[in-house]
């Protein structure tokens, strides 16, 4: 849940270009995202190095979060043994083949201690033998144009000792490391989250004003709630509760003690105002007063604090008329753009996402080819939507980036499994019931099923970034010429939002025909007859995560997130797949296939791909009896006498 450490803002002079041997991959930062990428590069046998400023991995966690409690859940028990499924509820582990490197072995706490995370990351790097160069502070990154290089240029990195690294691909996993500051008169009186005391003793009997409304602000408040006179919390926007927005970065219930005391009128309170309009005045006793910026400006520069007009001078019931002992700034973090040369064109400039570098949905920087941003710093792709800014989300996007790189530079196509079409329903079911990447990175990563010619077989690709769908063929090295399905997960369209009541009556949908109105996270399958174009992806209808499909299917939300009910989940899914492909995907016992083989010129796919290849499915006595009772199968042994019923049984299975 926390970004990796940033780099110092120091700017060193570029040393003479010593021609260093080029590396294929350089990873900046040995936080969770950097280590995750190192793992995939190592497994693929690639030439890579990780450069880390600190003497060990995950140094961010040495100090942050300040109150040491991670709010990413460490769910050690789910009642299931399926390792993939369990990752849906494990927000701390990185992906690896080693089951010992699961975070549940490192902490028993549901909300674990940050120290355990650092220890975990140390083990992850150590046990897997990841190649990390510690104590290396990269001070400057520039481009060296070279047409022979993979991307038309090398990335030239210079560290604090003047050593130069030439890299073909640069993977930036430096997190968000620069505290966000707001400049207004009196902002010099603020204490920052990064340095404020965490000892409640220091706050006894004080009036505290906290600026900010994120988890850091609430975490800080939570720590001192019991010892202060009161805490006021001021921010520009109203509080966003993660249970209402379904975004894990919003205020989590674990931190919301202040909401409780505020609503129960225990002196604490929340206020909304634009911080840039404010000013903080320090009076002679060292207490702080809130006033407006233009009062300060009006009063002129040389006025003493006591001479400036306060709001309560005019409006005597002004809410913040009380004097504060401390004002604490908890306004979040920004990406450190300072080490990147302008030629990399990394900075966004956009007002909205100033804190993040500008990247595409493939996590490649818009400004320079071959530079990828990983981890917390890559969160602009799904900010306030999905989990891409947190370990349990970016561990999957890092894998997606690695797969893209494998295809681009090593000709290794995106991994895919081939199956006969009869396995289609099962393949989808398997993934929607266990896939953790789809579940954590809902709306961002999706499985793609490429239908092969004549719809007799398909290729299954996992966790492809949906926004890159139009470029699927070039990014994956696979062909999508005969239609495709996109499987991902969604919340209901109008369900999430800071102002939404997510506990309203009738919030859950149970009937399969209402599945499209499901509110909670549920699988949605899009069918496209042709691969959407870039235009179609970009100009898709509002609120649609993907372009308008040829057909769409929602698997009705499930309280247990177990989508295996034969009639409630599987049957409607099969019908959808069948109707998209224009074929019959039912399964049949060998006896039925035998009958079809001798009474029809064509056989259903299940018989063609199984029975005709001598792999028919035999029935057993008990199953046959149920079949006859259900009317789906005929009792031929006793059929001599009523031959005229033909065609009238409910289970009549003529092809249509």
């Amino acid at each position: 849940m926390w970004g990796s450490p940033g780099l110092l803002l120091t700017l060193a002079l570029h040393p003479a270009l010593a021609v260093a041997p080029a590396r294929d991959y350089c990873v900046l930062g040995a936080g969770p995202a950097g280590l995750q990428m190192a793992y995939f590069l190592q497994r693929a046998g690639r030439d890579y190095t990780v450069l880390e400023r600190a003497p060990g991995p995950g140094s961010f966690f040495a100090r942050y979060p300040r109150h040491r409690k991670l709010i990413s859940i460490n769910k050690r028990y789910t009642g299931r043994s399926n390792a993939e499924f369990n990752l849906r509820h494990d927000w701390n582990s990185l992906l690896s083949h080693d089951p010992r490197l699961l975070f549940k072995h490192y902490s028993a706490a549901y909300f674990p201690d940050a120290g355990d995370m650092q220890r975990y990351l140390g083990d992850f790097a150590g046990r897997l033998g990841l190649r990390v160069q510690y104590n290396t502070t990269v001070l400057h990154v520039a481009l060296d144009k070279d047409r022979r290089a993979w991307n038309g240029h090398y990335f030239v990195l210079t560290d604090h000792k003047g050593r130069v690294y030439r890299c073909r691909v640069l993977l930036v996993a430096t997190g968000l490391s620069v505290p966000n500051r707001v400049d207004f008169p009196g902002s010099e009186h603020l204490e920052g989250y990064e340095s404020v005391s965490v000892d409640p003793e220091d706050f006894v009997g004080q009036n505290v004003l906290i600026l900010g409304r994120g988890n850091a602000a609430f975490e800080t408040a939570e720590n001192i709630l019991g010892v202060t006179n009161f805490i006021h919390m001021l921010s520009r926007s109203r509080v966003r509760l993660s249970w209402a927005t379904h975004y894990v970065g919003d205020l989590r219930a674990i931190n919301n003690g202040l909401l409780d005391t505020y609503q129960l009128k225990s002196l604490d309170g929340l206020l909304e105002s634009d911080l840039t309009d404010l000013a903080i005045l320090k009076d002679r006793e060292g207490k702080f007063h809130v006033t407006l910026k233009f009062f300060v400006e009006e009063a002129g520069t040389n006025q003493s604090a006591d001479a400036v007009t306060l709001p309560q001078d005019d409006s005597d019931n002004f809410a913040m008329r009380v004097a504060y002992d401390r004002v604490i700034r908890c306004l979040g973090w920004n990406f450190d753009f300072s080490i990147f040369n302008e030629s990399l064109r990394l900075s966004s400039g956009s007002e909205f996402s100033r804190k993040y570098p500008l990247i595409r949905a493939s996590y490649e920087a818009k400004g320079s080819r071959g530079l990828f941003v990983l981890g917390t710093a890559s969160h602009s792709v799904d900010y306030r939507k999905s989990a891409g800014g947190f370990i349990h989300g970016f561990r999957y996007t890092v894998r997606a980036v690695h797969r893209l790189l494998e295809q681009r530079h090593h000709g290794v196509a995106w991994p895919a499994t081939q199956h006969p079409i009869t396995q289609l329903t099962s393949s989808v079911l398997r993934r929607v019931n266990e896939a953790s990447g789809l579940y954590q990175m809902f709306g961002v990563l999706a499985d793609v099923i490429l239908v092969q010619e004549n719809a007799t077989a398909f290729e299954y690709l996992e966790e492809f970034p949906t926004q890159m769908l139009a470029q699927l063929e070039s990014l994956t090295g696979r062909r999508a010429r005969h239609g495709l399905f996109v499987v991902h997960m969604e919340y209901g369209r109008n369900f999430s939002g800071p102002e939404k009541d997510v506990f309203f009556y009738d919030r859950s949908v149970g009937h399969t025909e209402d599945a499209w109105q499901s509110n909670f996270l549920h699988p949605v399958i899009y069918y496209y007859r042709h691969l959407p174009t870039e235009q179609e992806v970009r100009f898709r209808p509002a609120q649609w995560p993907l372009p308008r499909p040829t057909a769409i299917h929602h698997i009705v939300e499930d309280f247990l997130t177990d989508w295996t009910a034969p009639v409630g989940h599987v049957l409607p899914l099969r019908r959808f797949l069948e109707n998209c492909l224009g074929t019959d995907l039912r399964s049949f016992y060998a006896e039925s296939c035998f009958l079809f083989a001798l009474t029809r010129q064509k056989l259903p796919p299940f018989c063609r791909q199984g029975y005709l290849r001598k792999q028919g499915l035999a029935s057993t006595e008990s199953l046959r009896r149920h079949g006859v009772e259900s009317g789906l199968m005929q009792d031929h042994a006793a059929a001599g006498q009523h031959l005229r019923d033909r065609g009238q049984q409910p289970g009549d299975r003529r092809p249509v």
Partner: protein
Amino acid sequence: MMCSSFRVFRVGISFVTMCIFYKSAANSLPELSPHEYFSTLQPGKASLAYFCQADSPSTSVFLEGLHEAVRPLQDYGISVAKVNCIKEETSRYCGKDKDLMKAYLFRGNILLREFPTDTLFDENAIVAHVLFALLFNEVKYITTPEDLQSAENALKGKANIVFSYVRAIGTPEHRAVMEAAFVYGTTCQFVLTTEIALLESIGSEEIEYAHLYFFHCKPVLDLTQECRRILMEQPLTTLNIDLFIKTMNAPLLTEVAEDPQHVSTVHFQLGLPLVFIVSQQATYEADKRTAEWVAWRLLGKAGVLLLLRDSLEANIPQHANVVFKRAEKGVPVEFLVLHDVDSIISHVENNVHIEEKQEDGEDDVEGPDIDIQDDEVAETVYRDRKRQLPLELTVELTEETFNATVMASDSLVLFYAGWQAVSMAFLQSYIDVAAKLKGTSTMLLTRINCADWTDVCTKQNVTEFPVVKMYKEGENPVSYAGMLGTEDLLKFIQLNRISYPVNITSIQEAEQYLHGELYKDLLSYSSVSVLGLFSPTMITAKEDFIEAGRALKGYVITGVYSGEDVLILSNKYAVTLPALLLARHKEGRIESIPLANTHAHDIVQLITDASLETFPEITVENLPSYLRLQKPLLMLFSDGSINPQHEKAVLTMVEQKHLDSLTPCWLNLKNTPVGRGILKAYFDTLPPLPLLVVVNLHSGGRVFAFPSDQAITEQNLLSWLKKLEAGLENPITVLPAQDWKPPLPAYDFLSMMDAATLQHPTRKAPECLKDPDVPESVKEHHEDKSAVEREPTETLRIKRWNRSSWFKYAEESLRRDKEL
């Protein structure tokens, strides 16, 4: 006296009123005396007269019917009269008894028929009977299938037949048929029956209702060919029959070169859709043939036209090859791209089907429910879910135990998924195998549920279910590729007790092997044993064979011998090395097959083909092996064991190479009861067994039946097959060639979502918290505040101008936020 005179008076009155009544209806039913009546009869004109006593009741059920029938009969030029038998004029038609009055049909003054009044029970009966009597030559009444056959034969090449079955003479359907016969009797031969058996013989179902067929006999020039029979699917009414016959007589194919939107043919006027096959100069001949074939198939269902694109001005999409014009007026035509005749047919049939559904769908039960399971495997597994399986007979593996277990002993692993029906169906068979092998096998039967241990399954390269793999020490795991059933899996396990191929060490052992003495207990699992013979120097050939043997591991017993003295064997079995010896244990025969430069893959094929029998009993399990040969099946259906004489006849023919182009086989209904389903599809009613058919699965799906009145002997079979080959036999049925389309539609969520967006922007979730109690002013402020958020600079400027009022505002705004 008073009384009687009063009565006379009353009769008089009633008589007057009746006269008035009859006057008004005079042109419908004249009342005449016998003399008057006979004087009106004209030569050649038909007339129906009801003779009644003058004092008979003037109203009766019969008279009512007669009144009704006057108009329709007049339409056919038949006059109707009521003749009052008065005392003065005696007529032989005036019966003695009041109750024995009859109606008489005359042509001119010749009596054609007399009808007891009870046969003419209503209008329909009167019209039907009269026309039936008059159209004696045009409508042939028959009672046996032979009659029908001879009528058909007599008319082949001459005229078409309208054959109908009605439940009884005098019914409304009978009348409808007669009225049609009156119109079409000169151009078609009408044949009528009331015998159900007759209808059954031509394969109709649902015989409660009347049926009408059109037999296309006119185009049939070859007497051995049958007339194409088209069933009229609508109810038998005069109008429907008229339309039906018109369509049948319409030209099969019309060529047009105008906008399909404006084309109308008799079919269209009759309420049938039109199918245009789009053609162009270059492909005209081929298109025409296709169109004719389509037309022939769609006879009575749609009109078919050939649309010449080249001479057409209207715009037809470039790729469209079929244009479909629905029967409904004003519906735009559809341009379609259909790649074969079957898809054209099914398109038409599906669309017609929908119309029918819509017509009578209102009060009917809804169509099949898409929420009802129609997958037999899923449904049966679900219904069986509560039965406890003896799962303990197999070892359940987990991530922790998997590797240790499969390394420790020879194991079979079933990879399955608990939520997948096919897996769970097979699990039952798997447990059965475990039960059968209990305590007798060294093979450990294990299973792993991939729904729980997905990583283990992925590591074993299992991503689909179910999969069975065999793990043996020192060998790569082998995937089982046989049928997912108890028998075949058991066979696989048993046959895996030996190595593949078996290394034979001496001539003596080789002989034992070939005679089935070496692996006596395995003979029931492998019908043949194969021995590869190589001289010690034939290293490559031997390696190829060994590879083939491995590929057949668990399916066919293979052995290899390459001793120095191998020539003894090759001489004995008269074969040059390298060679295969194939021992058919059941038949006690040993065949030899030379192997020259044969690759492993081809050897596998060779052995697989060679292990097929010449005249096998077809079962559910072995059919696929024989279908691979891609030949028509010559199949004998037998209720029990095969008659040895029949078997001999077929085997002799096989030996004489008469059956090389066929796969001869037989089916025992006792062992394979599903064979009944097959017969039902071929014959509708189960014919007496045994029965021989030729099923041409791979080309056209035609099924021919050996005549049941002939004995199954070599000669008869041979001459029948010759006729078949010469195309002189007609198929008893043609197997449907439809594709397997989705059995039912899916929920159309896309349209539901569209509809919701159009009607109402809100969804099931409330858009936002709308609190009716919030006063209007507060709401306004709320909106103002959002404006503040959006444009802070401008708001600030306003603030400067009016400080004090802004404070109030800011205060209120802050206070309000507190309230939130």
